């Protein structure tokens, strides 16, 4: 029910918003805030409720496909958090938009709600065709918003944005169609099974088609042409949503669709890893030179997301929580920064950072908040950004020291451009004379600072985020099998086999883990596993005590061997490179 | 010599051709409309003509469909004429070549 509400109710809200007055932003904004709060509450409930799925409703049948397309929503930790980002950022966008767009607020709210519904659908869809439907549907409200409320060059920006993303996902559509026509239906499992039966070159082609769509959406290095102009020209609240929630759809696609469906070869993984790192570095370098504040933030987002993509393709054990924390942290911090940049633009009338400055003295509360949020985005320990980047770095270190070193370089650069940004915007003296525009209102300030506080809270206790994480657990697989058809037991086995081959590194690690005697870490992990499986405290304690006693004699050697096997892993990895 | 179905079809074809030529070659918008009507009529005739070559059960459709197509043609003519009036008010012209705002 919650899932249906989150996906469909935003559209209903958009339609209801049409009934409100166009001239009176006050009344329409009240309704919009009400809806926004309701959606945020729902998304929090979704996170709290854990994994759940709706009934699979037959939707339509694609010509040439064997099974039909389902309207089938499934929430796992990753999707739920992304939905939280989308609803939360939309709410703040509605709040800040209230003061930015005087007359046309109603239309703004309508488009925001439509965008929110499409994003929620993207993050919750369990059916590939449904996912693709929402994935494309996101583009239109966003493009309309850009064209309707953007800056001076908005027409061009909207066109660039729409064409880039639509063209990027066109090959995916073809590939998806092809794959669906092979498969029993368009759920992940059957797609993966169908892919198994194709020959490798065809698999590769399909993979490239899928990758392209997500690469453009994220965006990753050579496909980022739309990003800077779009983020710069879009109204600031929309830019925040675009970077905070929508661009996550790309990374989400990598995790939720590419990894389960495609057996990735080492070459592809390596390529994507380095592409992600290249994006990170490139974005950071571009941000160093950008003079347009929003472009700077756009490139900074690009840099962070590049890191996230690299983290995804490190395929390490901790990849999923690491990337999720990074995404949530980035969504909140980058979103907040875009909102603040929008307010700065409203206040000073320009977004060229060379012409800004001195806002700390002129508008101290705003300045403090700006500095605070900038620090949060610097991945200072204690903030969620740090947890995300550290764990991603850790995953990268698994692939070898070089990627980690590059990521480290990226962190240094991020400090450089972010400090430059802060210095130019709020410190020093104003670079020119101007009449103060509308200041930040209390509502805006508090909503943005709530985002900041959330970053701190998640930074000190990331378990809030990581506990929600169970992508495709047992029950979901069974659920999908039920939908597929009764004789799917065999299939699920093959899928498991294919999942094992997703990364050689992973396999190596598993072997190493089995070969090692128990270490403290293993015990702890075992403990948590047992807990998850419903063993009582006493049972666990006794079991672990036994294991400890067994491995006590070997502990000294254990560390030793762990070290050796890790070295061996590193060596292997470097050889593979 | 008996009446052959092919004659009816030939007649329908001739009428259709004339209708099409009228619709496309004439510039006066009324003639365009009339040409369309003529072509529609020819198609109706063709329907009925073909229906008569079929056995009992199947010959029904060919004689019912023209009814519908006549009704649709009536609706079309109605809206079409209203459009003509509207355009004529704006353009003061019945030359269909003047109605060229459609070009992108």
């Amino acid at each position, binding site marked *: 029910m919650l899932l249906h509400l989150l996906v469909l109710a935003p559209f209903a809200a958009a339609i209801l918003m049409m009934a409100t007055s166009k001239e009176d932003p006050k009344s329409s904004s009240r309704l919009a805030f009400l809806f926004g709060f309701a959606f945020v509450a729902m998304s929090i409930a979704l996170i709290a409720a854990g994994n759940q799925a709706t009934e699979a409703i037959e939707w339509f049948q694609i010509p040439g496909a064997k099974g039909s397309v389902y309207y089938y929503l499934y929430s796992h930790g990753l999707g739920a958090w992304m939905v939280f980002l989308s609803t939360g950022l939309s709410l703040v966008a509605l709040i800040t938009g209230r003061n930015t767009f005087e007359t046309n607020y109603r239309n703004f709210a309508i488009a925001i709600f439509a965008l929110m519904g499409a994003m929620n659908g993207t993050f919750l869809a369990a059916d590939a065709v449904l996912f693709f439907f929402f994935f494309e549907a996101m583009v239109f409200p966003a493009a309309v918003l850009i064209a309707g409320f953007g800056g001076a060059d908005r027409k061009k920006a909207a066109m660039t944005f729409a064409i880039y993303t639509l063209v990027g996902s066109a090959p995916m559509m073809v590939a998806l169609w092809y794959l669906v026509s092979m498969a029993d239906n368009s759920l992940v499992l059957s797609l993966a099974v169908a892919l198994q039966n194709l020959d490798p070159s065809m698999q590769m082609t399909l993979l490239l088609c899928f990758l392209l769509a997500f690469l453009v959406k994220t965006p990753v290095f050579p496909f980022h042409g739309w990003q800077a102009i779009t983020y710069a020209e879009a109204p600031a609240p929309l830019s925040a949503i675009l970077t905070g929630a929508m661009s996550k759809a790309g990374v989400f696609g990598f995790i939720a669709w590419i990894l389960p469906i495609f057996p990735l070869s080492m070459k592809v993984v390596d390529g994507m890893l380095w592409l992600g790192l290249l994006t990170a570095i490139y974005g950071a370098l571009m941000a160093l030179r950008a003079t347009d504040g929003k472009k700077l933030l756009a490139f900074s987002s690009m840099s962070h997301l590049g890191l996230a993509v690299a983290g995804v393709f490190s395929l390490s054990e*901790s990849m999923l929580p690491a990337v999720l924390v990074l995404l949530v942290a980035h969504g909140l911090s980058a979103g907040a920064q875009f909102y603040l940049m929008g307010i700065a633009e409203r206040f000073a009338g320009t977004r060229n950072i060379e012409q800004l400055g001195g806002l700390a003295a002129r508008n101290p509360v705003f300045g*403090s908040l700006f500095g605070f949020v900038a620090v949060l985005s610097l991945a200072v320990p204690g903030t969620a950004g740090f947890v995300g980047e*550290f764990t991603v770095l850790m995953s990268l270190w698994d692939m070898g*020291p070089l990627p980690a070193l590059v990521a*480290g370089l990226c962190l240094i650069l991020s400090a450089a451009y972010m400090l430059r940004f802060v210095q130019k915007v709020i*410190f020093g003296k104003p670079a020119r004379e101007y009449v103060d525009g509308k200041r930040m209102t209390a509502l805006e300030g508090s909503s943005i600072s709530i985002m900041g506080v959330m970053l701190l809270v998640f930074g000190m206790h990331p378990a809030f985020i990581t506990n929600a994480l169970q992508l495709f657990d047992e029950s979901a697989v069974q659920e999908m099998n039920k939908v597929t058809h009764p004789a799917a037991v065999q299939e699920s086995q093959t899928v498991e086999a294919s999942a094992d081959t997703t990364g050689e590194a992973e396999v190596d690690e598993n072997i190493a883990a089995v070969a090692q005697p128990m270490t*403290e870490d293993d015990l*702890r992990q075992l403990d948590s596993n047992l807990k998850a499986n419903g063993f009582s405290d006493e049972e666990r304690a006794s079991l672990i005590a036994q294991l400890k006693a067994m491995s006590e004699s070997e502990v000294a050697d254990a560390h030793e061997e762990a070290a050796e096997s890790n070295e061996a892993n590193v060596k292997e990895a470097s050889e593979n490179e | 010599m008996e009446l052959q179905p092919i004659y009816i079809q030939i007649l329908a074809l001739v009428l259709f051709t004339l209708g099409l030529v009228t619709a496309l070659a004439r510039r006066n918008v009324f003639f365009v409309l009339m040409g369309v009507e003529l072509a529609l009529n020819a198609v109706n005739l063709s329907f009925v003509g073909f229906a008569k070559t079929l056995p009992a059960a199947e010959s029904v459709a060919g004689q019912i469909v023209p009814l519908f197509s006549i009704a649709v043609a009536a609706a079309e003519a109605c809206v079409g004429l209203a459009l003509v009036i509207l355009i004529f008010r704006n353009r003061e012209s019945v030359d269909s070549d003047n109605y060229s705002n459609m070009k992108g």
Partner: protein
Amino acid sequence: MTNLPLWIIPLFPLLGTILLGTIALISSGSKKGPSEGFVGALSVLFPAISFLCVVLLAFGMPEEGIRQTLCNWIDIPMLKVDIGFLFDGLSRVMLLFVTGIGSLIALYSIGYMHGDRGFTRFFAYINLFLFSMIVLVLSDSLLLTFLGWEGVGLCSYLLIGFWNHDLNNCKAANKAFIVNRVGDIGFLLGMLCLATLGGSAILNYDALNKFIEMLIAGGHVELATPIIAVAGLLFFVGCTGKSAQIPLLTWLPDAMAGPTPVSALIHAATMVTSGVYLLARLSRMFSVIPEVLVVVLIVGMLTAFWAAVAGLFQNDIKKVLAYSTISQLGYMFMAAGAFAFDASIFHVFTHAFFKAALFLGAGAVIHALAGEQDMRRMGGLIKKTPVTACVMIFAFLAIIGFPGFAGFWSKDLILERLYTNAPFGEFFYFAGLLTAVITAVYMGRLIIMTFFGEYRGSKEKEAHIHEAPASMLIPMVILAFGAVFAGYLWADSMGIKFFEQTLAPVVSDAQNYALGRISVAHVNPMTFACFGTAAALLGMIIAYVIYGTKRLPRLHKKWGSAPEGFKADWTFFFDYIHEIFIVMTKAFAFIADMIVDKILQGIQWTVGAIVEIVGDGVSSFQARKVRVQLTLSLVGVVALIAVVLMTGGLI
């Protein structure tokens, strides 16, 4: 009273930060601002309470220390870290002077920052700094230490750029943060490197020590050495960043742009010594990799010498002190490099007192002269500000190692350990001694130029010179006492070894292990004391001869190092090396922006243009006349039918 929970120590500064930050935010709108007395009282109260807690805990601390785990922090596969605190001999010493000196300097700042617009904000930052610093030294795992590590870096950034209306201050702050970031990445990678060895559990200090001991016990040291050595080097990079060693030293002189109490607290007494703290904390790990310690030793030696030489040429009073800090930090690293971790911490301890006293004295002088920092415009101040002068002279005697003062004991200890422990000990000993002479020279120069001779500033300024208020003098006097007597906690030649015993549980294992493998030379400690004294006296004499008699100071235009507050000319070529990196980065950015991006944009818009042209071309087929369009479609139908007829249908 020993059952106090450990988290109470960082709690108070944190509360202070939140409270003061809120006050600062709320009052930012009003012209007058909150009452300074109230804010000042609050801001001293919180560090003082936490100092009290530390004292209470320190007296009841059991031998092996107190360990408390507060809660879980990060819990994901591969990374499980708890928030836990470790209160042992090492963190006790550090905490005592961090909170103690922190409280004193907060008190001092009330006077110094009087009337500043950001009064409340300043104290919020100071409290945040103390919180971070306490977390840094109190944490029981590397990751939590890193939280404090970056936290103090952040506070340093905020405080250096405190007067942010001047962009030069901001630039200095940015430089400090970015250079520190470079070091921090080293720290981060070091942690990752360790984590490869034994999982994330090893990031806990106890677990790490146990791990190393297991390696030693099992005789597997050689196997793990390469990775540990890499980790050690990476950690040392982190230390060079935070403690301003070669090659990351350039930010510290620039950091003098901040308010003087900040320089005293952060850039002299506490934050910059956290690198030394880290080395001592990881001593067990470093003890198995003597090769890395040699690197530490060499870097420390070079830095000490280099910074001392640079200090000779500064005219800005704070910069002299900044270089002197770098130089003293070099001493500490030399000690750590010679396996004398306890000596290095002892020097940290004494240095905190006398350097804080020097900085506060310098602050009082600047305050008295209404912001003048150029020593060439000072002189003869001993008559106008006698208390300040006395404090500074005591601290001066301490820093040059005059017998009986704090610096004498710690510096001699370091020199002694250098001679006995280090490879090529004689060489490093003489380098240290030479540095001590130079130290005495430039510090003598500072004292002479500031307090003796004639006043060289403008006349109207002279009239305004006044002694600092009591709230500034009291901390200075207390610190001066520390500068005199702190050394007696470990007066080796007098047989007092209290300090050594305090630290013994933490570092003695490491030192014994390291020293057990080399032969220790035995020399009479009195010999070293004599040499040290001689060096101090020699330096003072040289200073007097050059600067005292000739009344040299003149306002040379070309003699760089004008007290502009941000330019560090005399870091020799390190600024230029940094510049190379910056230029390289900028060049890459330029390439990325102007070439790669332009090419990509070019491709993008070319494709766009081609599509548009093709579209235009096609749209010219799109006939203007409706009839023609229809006819064309008709022709299409004809073609279609023709095809169907000719092929007999496609199906």
